[in-house]
């Protein structure tokens, strides 16, 4: 970590960093030029495969592999969608990348478009990010005016345009098929898979959905090569620079760029300055609200890369790290998140719709001191009903259409199992006794 220099956030805070002029004098668009003029699609896919880049949207799926699922000889148009929905509680990294360096993200999109032979790409950005959407529009206009987008970009015969598409307030539109439905002008109801978007996505055409941060890595991989990227971080299998979002009870909340696999304790105690008011740590939610909570003792020596966090029984997910100190009421935390999921369930699957509502009701009862002993088992039963096996990188999502079911079931279960005592304190009979 000591000699690590930020890569993705190198220009954050520099005056003018969002402008094309600034970007061009800092190696900007050299990688895109190279990909368009000197590389075949296969070569782009290969270098990204070799780099070991894993998608930063939550699932950690290998990016080059995802691209290779796009049928090469299909006569349908192919679409790239940049997922800038950033709606997972605890996550605020994509907004930073867009605000400070929108051209890095756009350059990544040009490279990905070359890889999958896409000529119209979208940035699906959450509706609340009004300023960020405008900033992207301005950056895209700069590109169009300089023949870096439009017909024959960089003087080649490759056409590409990019449209900014604003969402309108719905967490589930971050899920890639919910996003695609939303882009098509419908409610954001996730689709049953298969078919996967690579075969039938937007307008039934082959589609790749990639996260903002994933795309921002691409110019660097093209310029510096796969081996360079592989060598960054603690694990050869899960390499690269990574943005970690620290929030909750830390002295210096914010986005920190570090090599993948940095220890969680280093992030909390060194980069983020330690626990607020020098209290003791109780627990950490390591990868956005959908990742199961870890207790203070479980994070000892934990490396923050996809396989390591998974091995610890949680997920790196969106790297939204929420730090909870010893004063935190875990029943309230659990209730707050259950309420979020009940509000955001799209309502398509009965176990998810009913289950999240039910969990919220039971947990609210607890927070009001009206919990009953049997409720604890009831909570576990309901979570079992909503979601079975969790593995965001696999296609099978158990009992619901999309992984949202697991995203609520697993965290709630972890709270109840790991902090059972705190739930017991809220039981109604104990209050009376």
């Amino acid at each position, binding site marked *: 970590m000591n000699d690590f220099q930020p890569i993705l956030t190198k220009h954050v805070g520099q005056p003018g960093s969002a402008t094309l002029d600034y970007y061009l004098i800092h190696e900007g668009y050299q990688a895109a030029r190279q990909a368009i003029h000197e590389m075949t699609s296969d070569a782009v896919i290969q270098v990204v495969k070799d780099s070991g880049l894993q998608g930063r949207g939550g699932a950690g799926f290998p990016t080059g592999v995802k691209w290779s699922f796009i049928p090469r000889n299909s006569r349908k*148009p192919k679409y790239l969608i940049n997922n800038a929905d950033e*709606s997972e509680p605890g996550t605020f990294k994509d907004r930073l990348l867009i605000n400070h360096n929108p051209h890095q993200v756009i350059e990544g999109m040009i490279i990905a478009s070359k890889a999958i032979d896409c000529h119209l790409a979208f940035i699906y950005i959450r509706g*609340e990010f*009004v300023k960020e959407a405008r900033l992207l529009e301005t950056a895209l206009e700069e590109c169009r005016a300089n023949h870096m987008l439009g017909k024959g970009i960089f003087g080649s015969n490759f056409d590409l345009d990019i449209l900014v598409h604003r969402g309108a*307030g719905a967490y589930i539109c971050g899920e890639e098929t919910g996003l695609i439905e939303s882009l098509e*002008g419908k409610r954001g109801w996730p689709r049953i898979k298969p078919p996967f978007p690579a075969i039938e996505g937007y307008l039934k055409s082959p589609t790749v959905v990639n996260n903002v941060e994933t795309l921002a890595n691409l110019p660097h991989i093209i310029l510096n090569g796969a081996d360079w990227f592989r060598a960054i971080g603690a694990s050869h299998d899960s390499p690269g620079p990574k943005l970690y979002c620290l929030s909750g009870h830390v002295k210096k909340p914010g986005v920190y760029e570090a090599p993948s696999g940095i220890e969680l304790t280093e992030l909390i105690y060194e980069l983020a300055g330690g626990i607020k008011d020098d209290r003791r740590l109780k627990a950490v939610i390591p990868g956005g609200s959908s990742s199961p909570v870890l207790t203070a003792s479980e994070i000892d020596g934990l490396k923050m890369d996809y396989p390591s966090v998974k091995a610890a029984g949680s997920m790196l997910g969106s790297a939204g790290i929420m730090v909870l100190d010893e004063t935190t009421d875990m029943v309230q935390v659990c209730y*707050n998140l259950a309420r979020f999921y009940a509000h955001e369930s799209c309502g398509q699957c009965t176990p998810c719709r009913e289950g999240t509502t039910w969990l919220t009701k039971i947990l609210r009862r607890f927070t009001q001191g009206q919990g009953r002993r049997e409720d604890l088992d009831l909570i576990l039963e309901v979570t079992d009903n909503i979601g079975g096996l969790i593995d965001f990188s696999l296609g099978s999502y158990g009992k619901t259409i999309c992984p949202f079911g697991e995203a609520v079931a697993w965290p709630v279960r972890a709270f109840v199992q790991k902090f059972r005592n705190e739930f017991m304190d809220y039981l109604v009979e104990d209050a009376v006794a």
Partner: protein
Amino acid sequence: MSFAFTPERKRLFKELVKRYPDKRSVTLPALHLAQEQEGYLGRETIEALARMLGSAPSTLMDTVSFYTMFTTRPRGKYLLQVCQTLACSLAGADQVVDHISKRHQIKVGETTPDGKFTLLKVECLGSCGTAPVVQINDDYYERLTLDKVDRILDKLA
């Protein structure tokens, strides 16, 4: 009251229809354009947009009702949306809501009688590192304290 885009917005809408590969995909952008202009999406607006997009009003309404940012009723001039999700809640979002509620004598979901402020609780705004957060129309106000809330609202009043 019938609905029509202003000439500038009409131009924008036509431009979008040209750029997107199909018309229905222009739904969300068109709804945003209309709501920015009118403040809300009334029945006439929905009907007119449905005609422009070539879909049935009921189909369009189905989409509108799914998204929290779209509203079919007028809201206050300033929409105060306080994030209530975990990071903001840990940082005192409830007190922010109570404070605004008392200050303007409105409950969550209500609008002040002068039509100035509407208070809403919303879910994670993607700004958890600077909690607690309120979005007022297009702008985020972060690291709120009750004093800061007063100063912001004083400026708007």
